[in-house]
């Protein structure tokens, strides 16, 4: 192999790299939180008694799941201004990520909800809880727990997918790698480092989600 690796040359650009990494972290945190919220609302809409909400939610999921993410992103950033909706690169990137994650999570969370034993809902009704209280207090928590690992995987997929928003010049990790290799032509090193950083992020995300999960879903006896 005649290629000599030169990671040292990347040090010069470590600020760029770290800024990119930080942006990716921010994109991920914001879109994960909002995406989960959207997924819950989408799933709630899917079983709402109002048919407009039900069908609207289904249409939303189908639309997003059957179109490429990059097209969704371009539509939001380049398309929407044509009808007067303008936003910054970062705003457009986050919006696209949230909408995308929300659609997949709607489907995932809905599957968890569908497995709710009917008797539990009846017991809750018998106790006098309203439909909304039943959804929030009785249906959602165990449903979310049932599909938690799928939710986590989907959030990680979206973190990785956030690389695509470099295409509208959001200065995140992939953008940084592109930038660096365009300067020093060290494509191999630049992208390898970026890949390792993504790997690290994915690992950390899983770790954090697992910590949250094991606390939130603990069935250890509670002291009163």
């Amino acid at each position, binding site marked *: 192999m005649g290629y000599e690796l030169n990671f040292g040359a990347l040090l010069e650009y470590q600020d760029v790299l770290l800024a990119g990494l930080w942006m990716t972290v921010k994109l991920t945190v914001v879109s994960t939180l909002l995406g989960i919220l959207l997924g819950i609302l989408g799933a709630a809409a899917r079983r709402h008694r109002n048919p407009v909400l039900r069908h609207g939610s289904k249409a939303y999921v189908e639309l997003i799941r059957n179109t490429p993410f990059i097209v969704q992103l371009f539509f939001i950033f380049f398309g929407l201004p044509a009808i007067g909706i303008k936003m910054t690169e970062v705003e457009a990137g986050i919006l696209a990520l949230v909408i995308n994650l929300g659609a997949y999570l709607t489907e995932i969370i809905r599957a968890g909800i569908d497995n709710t*034993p009917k*008797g*539990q809902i*009846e*017991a*809750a*009704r*018998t*106790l*006098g*809880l*309203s*439909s909304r*209280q039943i959804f929030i*207090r*009785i249906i959602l*928590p*165990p449903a979310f*727990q049932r599909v938690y690992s799928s939710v986590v995987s989907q959030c990680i997929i979206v973190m990785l997918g956030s690389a695509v928003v470099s295409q509208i010049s959001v200065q995140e990790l992939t953008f940084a790698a592109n930038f660096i290799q365009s300067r020093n032509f060290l494509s191999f090193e630049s992208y390898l480092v970026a890949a390792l950083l993504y790997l690290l992020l994915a690992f950390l995300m899983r770790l954090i989600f697992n910590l949250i999960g094991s606390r939130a*879903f603990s*069935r*250890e*006896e*509670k*002291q*009163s």
Partner: protein
Amino acid sequence: MSLVSVRDVHKYFGDLHVLKGIDLDIKAGEVVSIIGRSGSGKSTLLRCMNGLESYDQGAIILDGMEVSTDEFQVRKLSQSVGMVFQSFNLFPHLTVGENIMLAPTLIKKTSKAEAKKLAQEVLEKVGLGDKFGQYPEKLSGGQQQRVAIARSLAMKPKVLLCDEITSALDPELVGDVLKVLEQLAAEGMTLVLVTHEMNFARDVGDRVVFMHQGKVHETGDAKTVLADPQTPELRQFIGAVL
């Protein structure tokens, strides 16, 4: 005046005529056992009494309220009627204490401290005072069912509907649950039980309602009816279960 009054109630599931004109009056403090073969409409009748199931004709008045499946009405009814199910239906993500405190705090706006006291009280009553912080999955079926009873009692209902609440239990756990019911009966709680426990129906129950093909086929004082059934159908049914 009766606490529950069922007047000529008919119920269809599609083409299936499940309840064919039920008339039934239940007085406060009465313990009524509904018996009958599988598919005779026992559960359906019970579920119509608290608005879990709609009916197509007739009227059910419970504690002065017309029973319907309208959400607002069901919520209002929940202050007067409780229900315990064959499958316990505890909320798995909540501790025993939280299961019990949920409805009083949400529906009756009872303060947390008061609800806690109430929960502890009803738990003691069913003999599970030490399980407050435990999760349902850690309890035996019999214990879960007693928690379910306690959860209903915390809403201080005037009548408790029980649909085969011992049928899913291992035989050795049935006694503990029946003991709780017996104690409730002794305290004057109005109980409507769908049950296969003939001994319980005879010894603790006041009245037996035998359902057959969607109708009240025979009814009367528990001891009399079970000792001396008048219809061949009830005679046959008793012969089959005893």
